[in-house]
């Protein structure tokens, strides 16, 4: 079988569309998204009276005139992975000042986007025989699992072992070790290890399985991120790279030696690493530029066949 793996699209509309289109382009039968589907920012498009709107994208303020200009800006914002929100100055003030209002808006945008993405996938994948498997990551709110489950063609595989083909199972978890941002699906290493062991225990043959674990193994080189200062700035102008992956993921990789490890989480950590027979891949992410990093991997009955990392 041949699969395409991508991860960390973080709300980028164009990256999701490319992900769905990747099956045909790379001639694969299975699509796997490693997690972190949701965006990190909302860009308000603020009505200024008349048919004018003000928007500040990437610190660049623009005045938009008319629906066509607004629609174009909405697409641009969506493709960068942000949520555009057409609003007015009063509502912006409310969102900024009323506790919980911003979280509620984010939730609304996240759910609406995931629903739209599922519709897109259903429309494109129906009848193609292509499987699409998604495992939400640490940045994804729990509620999106249900939204994915509602799709006819996309399957959420968090915490599950599924059969990829007659020879290979896939173990999946989007949970990670703690980050400085206290995200939704993160927990201490001990708890994470227990969680992973519970999932792996469902597998009949872990040594011939694919481990689709969002966090990369600690110290693998797939987990190198800029060291941060106490006030959350990249130290040494980002030159100092430190391993931030999961020791639990490393432990299960070393313990079970699966065929393949599929990881993400660290956008800068694009690469591959072998742990004995296990090939671990982190394709990295350039979601803000609308570029979909991925990996095309061929699975043979007892080994990984050809593979290549892509910049699509």
């Amino acid at each position: 079988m041949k699969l395409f793996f991508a991860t960390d699209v973080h709300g980028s509309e164009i990256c999701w569309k490319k992900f769905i289109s990747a099956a045909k382009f790379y001639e694969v039968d299975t699509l796997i998204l490693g997690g972190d589907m949701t965006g990190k920012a909302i860009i308000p498009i603020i009505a200024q009276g008349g048919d004018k709107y003000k928007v500040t994208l990437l610190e660049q303020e623009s005045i938009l005139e008319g629906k066509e200009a607004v629609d174009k800006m909405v697409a641009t914002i969506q493709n960068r992975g942000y949520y555009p929100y057409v609003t007015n100055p009063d509502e912006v003030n409310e969102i900024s000042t009323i506790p919980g209002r911003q979280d509620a808006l984010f939730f609304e945008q996240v759910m609406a986007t995931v629903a739209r993405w599922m519709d897109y996938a259903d429309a494109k994948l129906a009848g193609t025989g292509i499987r699409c498997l998604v495992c939400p990551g640490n940045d994804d709110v729990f509620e999106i699992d249900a939204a994915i489950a509602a799709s006819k063609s996309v399957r959420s595989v968090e915490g599950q072992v599924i059969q990829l083909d007659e020879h290979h199972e896939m173990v999946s978890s989007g949970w990670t070790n703690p980050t400085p941002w206290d995200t939704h699906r993160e927990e201490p290493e001990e708890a994470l290890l227990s969680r992973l062991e519970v999932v792996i225990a469902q597998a009949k043959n872990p040594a011939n399985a694919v481990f689709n674990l969002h966090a990369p193994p600690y110290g693998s080189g797939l987990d190198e991120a800029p060291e941060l200062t106490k006030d959350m700035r990249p130290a040494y102008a980002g030159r100092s790279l430190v391993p931030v992956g999961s020791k639990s993921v490393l432990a299960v990789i070393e313990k079970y030696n699966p065929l393949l490890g599929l990881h993400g989480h660290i956008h800068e950590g694009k690469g591959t690493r072998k742990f004995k027979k296990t090939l671990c891949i982190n394709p990295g992410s350039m979601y803000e530029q609308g570029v979909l990093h991925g990996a095309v991997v061929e699975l043979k009955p007892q080994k990984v066949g050809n593979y290549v990392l892509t910049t699509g």
Partner: protein
Amino acid sequence: MSEVNLFVRKASGLVRAWSVFDAFIYATFSINLITLGLFIFSYCWYFGGSLGTAVVVGGVFTIFEVIVYASLISAMPRAGGDYVWQSRILGRGIGFLLSVTGWWFILWLWVPLYGQILTYEFLTPMAALLGAPEAALWLTGDSWGLFVGMLLVCTIVFIYIAIGMKWYARVQKASFYMGVLGLLIVFGLLLFNDKDTFIIALNANLPVVYGLPAGVDYYTETMAAGQAAGGVVGSLSDFSMMGLIASIAMVPMMTFFNLWPNWGSTLYGEVRGANDYKRNFWGMAAAIIVTAGLALVLFTLINKTMGWDFFINSNAAFWGYAFDTTGTVAAPPIPVWPYPIQFASFLTSSRALQLVIIFLVGMWWFGWSGTVFLSSTRVIFAAALDRMLPEWVSKIDSRTRTPINALLLMVIPSIIISILYAWDVVSFKSIVLDATLVIAVTFFGTTLAGIVLPWKQKEIFDGSPIARYIMPTWLSWLVTLLFVAASGYLIWLMANLGGQVFAVFGEQTLLTKAIIALLAVLSVGNAALLVYVVWYVGSKVLAGAKLPLITLAGLVFFAFLDWLLVVWFWDPSFYYGIGWQNSTSMVFMIIMYALAAAIYFGFSSYRKRQGIDVDKVYKEIPVE
């Protein structure tokens, strides 16, 4: 209360802005006035003109390079630099050919250069000051001595890679502060002493430190030796037409040190805009400006206290002898590389302080040296990920956590090149500037990618922070017309210089004839490329487009790089020594590009037979 224009949720990866000063430190190390700068300044002994003017002019053009790179970083961050930018915008083949040669193969030649600089600026003076003058003279004067320096480079860089970027970044920062302190002490010594004191100090210290005969006026003898070797002493303040022409002729030498502010700068935050672009720009641009300023201060102080004529002639005496093929140039009175920092340190009678100065200023080397393999290992890894190299090259040793095989792909060829260089086999020491030329070709490709980015990758450009930097119509027209004029000049220059060479074609060996023919073909290709860029950009401007800043800056830097390549290759006055007259240089470069092409076509074909469609690696996935 200012209006909110962005809501950010709690999500991983969102960080505050990094320190511009830190970025400046690393860019300053990449340019490196002390290692690269002093080394290449010492080669400029036969030009005349003003070294200061050359530094400033070279620096001005490098600012345009900074704009191009800062723009590409902000438009396509975390992409992996030149390799991915070129592959994505210009095509996979071009990206591979230019990046593998510019970021991997040519670094094999940088190893002996790093080693030579280590030997000249640190090992030799330290050995002498520690009471081992014979060892000091052996290090500089014997091929084995130089080779030891080169092996040390491999060892030190291996240690840096083994300790990882976390600790190397700390070493660099500490080295910066120590290096700057050392340089300030040198400035102080030069500022508060005069030439008479310097002459006395030089003549007194050389015998003691290096075990040379006492009672010799080394200052005067060095001046005479430099003149006899053909040294041409210009003036720092020579702004006459002839002086300017000589100064401009030195600009291609200056690129040896000031072309690298972009080395390793790829940082860009998520959900960030123009502010990060400016941070990238200022980190690199400040390095250019401050380094040029420091160079001018150093030149002025050398002029005041050592005498500019002594500086030039000491270099002429050393290099004139080193490169003499006729046997007519006498050995220099000072048998070591004329290191201005050590000469300045002689202005203190304290041997301990002299040691401290050499040690502190030596930190400019130690903080910088790790760069030689870091970029190379990244490109090797990137090529392996694209399946253009075997998988084993990206193996990480589990015990040391070092990319052992990638390092071997650097170290083994580097040792071979170091042997050729140390023993000057087939005049290998003459190809110093190849180290710059090949990377300049890589930058040439990236600059072209930057020029066409707004149209070739419109979606990426439109959604990037640099989309806001659009130049007014008049400036778009002005720069386009200037580029048209520059292209015309460059085509004329190639024809003119090529014509001069073809006039003596019949007198050349078969190999040289083949090289000239190759250069002629490349020149025709270059002319076609210039015409293409004129057409591409010109048609946009004619259609009423205002040029984005990246395109505008790209045009200026592209023309500059093109000029460098033309004068390096055709080089009628044999100023740079790496063009058609130097078959070692040309064959060396041809082998590198041929090797890259062989790997590219070989692996493309091999992977296709394996069922991997490598042509799709950088192709954009079409969305239905």
